[in-house]
């Protein structure tokens, strides 16, 4: 379930990186905002569906604010600004009272979804999370294959040309940012429900880095890549953290370096490229 949440998170992130060519280093902000708000509301009222919805909307709203700020600067500044704004969010959550500061929100009740579905049961919860995940992935897929998604790709490939074709590039970027933030929020809120707690780790820049790595490792610019990446990284972290403790950061970092140096298409991207090469050869032969 943790992997599913992170896979959704990575898919949402990849909508920006892979399809719009914008490297956001601050997606933890949306992830954690939704998580905190959902957790807080569920603790207060006990409606998980409402909490997740509210968290998602809050993440989208934050995405709108951050997005409209960040499109004012070009290129590499994008990553730095998103990182800085996410850090701002982090410090706000550190100070704010409703987040529980360093302790985080603990013991969030899972409750009943729409009064009938009992989420305390792990298997039921699993199917609900799976449904949310599928919904999110389909939403990403739908966005990518829509005319809107084509414009995003055009912006990634050649921004000046997209402008010259009369597209208001900044509005498209903001829209993509909001969608990405909202789905990240959905992932964050769901994660809050699964784990029954939300801590500052979710808002930390390491989380933003993790999701970048998941997209990169799986293959950015593919729909399935981030899912593969997320499952790999989460499994790796689960397996290793018992054995090597904090050394896992070193391994994650090393994977990062290797990915950037030799493996830029990611797992899914490499397989697709290999497949194309084999198929291509057959056609020639």
């Amino acid at each position, binding site marked *: 379930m943790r992997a599913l949440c992170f896979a959704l998170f990575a898919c949402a992130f990849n909508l920006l990186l892979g399809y719009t060519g914008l*490297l956001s*280093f601050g997606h933890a902000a949306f992830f954690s905002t939704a998580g905190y708000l959902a957790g807080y509301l569920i603790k207060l009222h006990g409606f998980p569906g409402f909490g997740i919805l509210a968290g998602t909307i809050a993440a989208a709203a934050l995405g709108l604010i951050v997005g409209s*700020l*960040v499109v*004012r*600067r*070009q*290129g*590499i*500044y994008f*990553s*730095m*600004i998103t*990182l*800085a*704004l996410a*850090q*701002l969010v982090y*410090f*706000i959550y*550190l*100070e704010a009272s409703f987040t529980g500061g360093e302790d985080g929100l603990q013991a969030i009740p899972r409750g009943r979804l729409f009064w009938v579905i009992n989420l305390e049961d792990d298997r039921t919860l699993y199917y609900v999370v799976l449904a949310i995940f599928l919904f999110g992935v389909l939403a990403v897929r739908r966005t990518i294959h829509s005319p809107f998604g084509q414009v995003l790709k055009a912006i990634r490939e050649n921004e000046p040309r997209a402008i010259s074709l009369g597209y208001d590039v900044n509005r498209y970027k903001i829209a993509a940012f909001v969608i990405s933030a909202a789905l990240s929020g959905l992932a964050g809120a769901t994660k809050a429900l699964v784990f029954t707690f939300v801590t500052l780790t979710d808002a930390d*820049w390491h989380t933003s*880095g993790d999701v*970048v790595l998941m997209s*990169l490792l799986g293959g950015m610019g593919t729909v399935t890549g981030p899912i593969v990446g997320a499952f790999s990284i989460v499994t790796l972290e689960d397996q290793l953290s018992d054995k090597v*403790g*904090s*050394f*896992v*950061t*070193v*391994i*994650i*970092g*090393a*994977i*990062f*370096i290797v*990915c*950037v*140096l030799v493996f*830029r298409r990611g797992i899914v991207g490499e397989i697709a490229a290999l497949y194309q090469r084999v198929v291509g050869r057959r056609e020639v032969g």
Partner: protein
Amino acid sequence: MLSALLGQLVVGLVNGCFYAMLSLGLSIIFGMLDIVNFAHGAFYMLGAMLTWFALDQFGVGYWWSLLLAPLILAVAGVLVERGLLRWIYRIDRSYGLLLTFGLTLVIEGLLRYKYGVSGRPYTIPEAFQGAFNLGFMFLPKYRAWVVGATLLISLITWLLIERTHVGAYLRAATENPTLVRAFGINVPAMITITYAVGVALAGLAGVLAAPAIQISPLMGSNLIIVVFAVVVIGGMGSILGSIVTGLGLGLIEGLTKVFYPQASSTVVFFIMAIVLLLRPAGLFGRER
């Protein structure tokens, strides 16, 4: 009240010095390599850790560290540039950020694994113990030294880049590397040296910071994000811009600590947001 205010201002100024030195190195590297060096914070942390380690293990004092740590880090910078960064110049700039981010995780993770996250104190060297009595306030000698040293280093860097032949080559290579190469100047070597110098500056800042703060493997990454905000505010265009912005934001942070302590860790980011609204190119920047 007044002395508390001035005290916080001096602390802010000292922090501003570290911001200034880091954003200076960051801009130099960015200008030449077109890479945002995320690992800059890690090198700053290494500078401080080396200082602590040298004293703790070998009894090597502050002054030697001040000389040796930047040199060691410059060598490390050469290795990183030759071994890693060189392979990714032809592809999108974002990969530079990702690569150095990975490098940061490795460096930070290794030190965290070995030394944990707890802070370590470093005694202020004898020459700088005590404080100057300025009449209206006490100015700790070490803080005065940090500010003075930073200004001196910044001045030297500025002179080197703006007033010497090497600096002229450097600026030319920033504008048009192919042309400069055609004139028979070894641009790849210059790139390596630039990276090494930028890293050494970060290391030097780390050594200067060692006695002023708690040394821990996490100190770098916490700082680098603030420095990113500083760079966004000031723009990476000019050396003077980095220094002024760095010092100014340090001062503002110090002021915030007096009047509204809760916001002291966020004020720089708020200013960044405001600057983005009013002057998207940054205070001293030009779009690129």
